[in-house]
């Protein structure tokens, strides 16, 4: 078991909660983990990423090498493409199709779509909409995690358990909402994969 994952988004979108849950699930299974995060200036609305590595064997580098990532999970389309050189040729992109536009020269949606069309393994869907229907807008991270769960190499039940561990302090209701969003995301992801 060895997975290298890049989590991508814009400062303030909260990619770290996805990382926290995958990390917790890996910890519960006694796997090795390294997870490099971005703190500081770029958190003010700049591009942010986290390199998450999990493995049954000890891990050396905190960073993922070019062409080695098994997946890019991104809360926003352009940010998914920023890390393309790191994605393995067989790797997956799981992406929220709703753009986060806070710069004047954000590319046209069609240009982004054309880029995704060139890639073999992409799960792209409106995660905001799924979140709104299920747990509310703040659960969009869990929706995306759900959609990515099939390619993480960690059982769903373990991920749900980890959601409980991470959100447990905030109460049972919060855990349930997030698990619900996670499951809805998984369904949405499955549908996309089958297409």
């Amino acid at each position, binding site marked *: 078991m060895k997975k290298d994952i890049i989590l991508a988004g814009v400062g303030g979108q909260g990619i770290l909660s996805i990382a926290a849950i995958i990390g917790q699930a890996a910890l519960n299974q006694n796997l090795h983990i390294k997870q490099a995060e971005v*703190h500081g200036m770029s958190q003010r609305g*700049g591009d942010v990423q986290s390199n998450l590595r999990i493995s049954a064997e000890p891990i050396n580098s905190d960073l993922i090498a070019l062409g080695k990532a098994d997946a890019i999970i991104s809360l926003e389309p352009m940010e998914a493409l920023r890390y393309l050189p790191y994605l393995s040729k067989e790797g997956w992109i799981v992406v929220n199709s709703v753009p986060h536009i806070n710069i004047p020269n954000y590319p046209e949606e069609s240009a982004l779509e054309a880029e995704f069309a060139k890639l073999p393994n992409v799960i792209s869907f409106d995660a905001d909409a799924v979140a709104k229907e299920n747990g509310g807008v703040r659960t969009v991270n869990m929706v995306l995690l759900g959609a990515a769960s099939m390619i993480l190499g960690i059982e769903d039940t373990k991920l749900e358990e980890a959601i409980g561990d991470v959100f447990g302090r905030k109460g049972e209701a919060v855990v349930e909402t997030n698990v619900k969003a996670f499951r809805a995301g998984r369904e949405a992801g499955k549908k996309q994969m089958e297409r």
Partner: protein
Amino acid sequence: MTDKLLLLGDQAIALGAVHSGLSGVYAYPGTPSTEITEYIQENKLARERGVRSDWCTNEKTAMEAALGMSYIGKRALVCMKHVGMNVAADAFVNSAMTGVNGGIVVVAADDPSMHSSQNEQDSRFYGKFALVPILEPSSQQEAYDMIRYGFDLSEEVGLPVLMRITTRMAHSRAVVTVGEPIAENPLHFPEAGVANWVLLPVNARRRYREIIAVQDKLEKMSETTRFNSYKKGGKKGVIACGIGYNYMMENLPADSDRTILKVSQYPLPADIIREMVEECDEVLVIEDGQPFVEEQVRGLLDCSGKIRGRLSGELPRDGELTPDNVAAALGVKEGQHFDVCSTVVPRPPALCAGCGHRDVYSVLNEVIREYPDHKVFSDIGCYTLGALPPLRAIHTCVDMGASITMAKGAADGGLFPSVAVIGDSTFTHSGITGLLDAVNSKSNVTIIISDNLTTAMTGGQDSAGTGRIEAICLGVGVEPEHVRTVVPLPKNMEEIRKVIKEEIEYNGVSVIVPRRECIQTLKRKSRK
């Protein structure tokens, strides 16, 4: 009892320190070091024990407080980002001169690639400069273990110990096995008396000779420490320092026969390196930051071409190490990967929507447009982002507190208007003394202290002068009618415009304090 926790490098250091019987952490927030102190502030055991963990006014006050705590026998930790070492340098270097009683570990967090900093300076130079041992962990586990080792070492040799980390160590999580905490040191004074504490020349000369005399011992310790290791192999050698070791291991095949020296403790183990260079045809130095080791090993006169690294071009001269540039240096063939996607554009950080600094800058821009020769000297914090379009409101950002003194210098030279923009936390960090200079020479400057009641850039830590900014300015001697407070909200623009205009026109020192809480801090508070 042992426990497995998923910790950032910073957190591993923090917990390691608490478990080493820490009595106080002294720090000023700075990326990537901030999370060390924050973790101790929240840690249960630290709270129970009453470990001191309030934020300090700046890195120098932090270093000095730690030294005071050490003199009475207790263990103290000092944390800062690399440029904070410049501020603390006087106290740091002289803490080696006086020596310590209770252990002191100083953590300097370097930021190669300048993710959140204005330079790439390598703190290891400070350790060598002060002639103290330097520790550089290669993993989060090592960071946890090394802190206790560092405190023991500090007490054994009577010197502060510098722990140098880089961004990737500070801000990367890994599973750390933690052990049992030990008790704090009791209050006790050095057996030899306290003459070392008075650095009059007569004592300082003696102390300096003592520090020089202990260097051989420190070097021997670097040969035997469990944190350094030497594996003899073939004719190709690698010296891998700190996290450079990980990038090397990531790339070397399991059956590689390279001769490898892992360095996590300095001064460099010179005898081992001598042997290694003699037996190898080539020695590659992998180190994050500046070529600190490469330069020492190569020396000025070595023309053999054997020593390779950042200076010889195997590794880039600037920027952080990555698994990819280390792979190239090791001659590992690059694998296939996708090209950079040309549709992607940069997404620079920006001031938050609704941030008070935005209002300050938009009205300042309007007023100052009438004065074609104006310059706005600014400082370090969120408001530095005001340099970027569309605001483009400031013309400098150099070091903490420099805005006020640079505006003074420019005004002294005849610039009008000469404006400074500084945040509240940066003002108390290093701006007050500059303000006193300006007052004393009656310089014609307009100083805007944009007060958001927090240290926002690093995530909202307490700011040392909250609630007392005007009182400080008055105390320093700014005339009361030229200390003006406003609230930066769109509805107050007219009033603020008038105030700025009046104070620019006043020939002397004036201070304007636009005050509105950082909206991120406000949000966090309302969530609690």
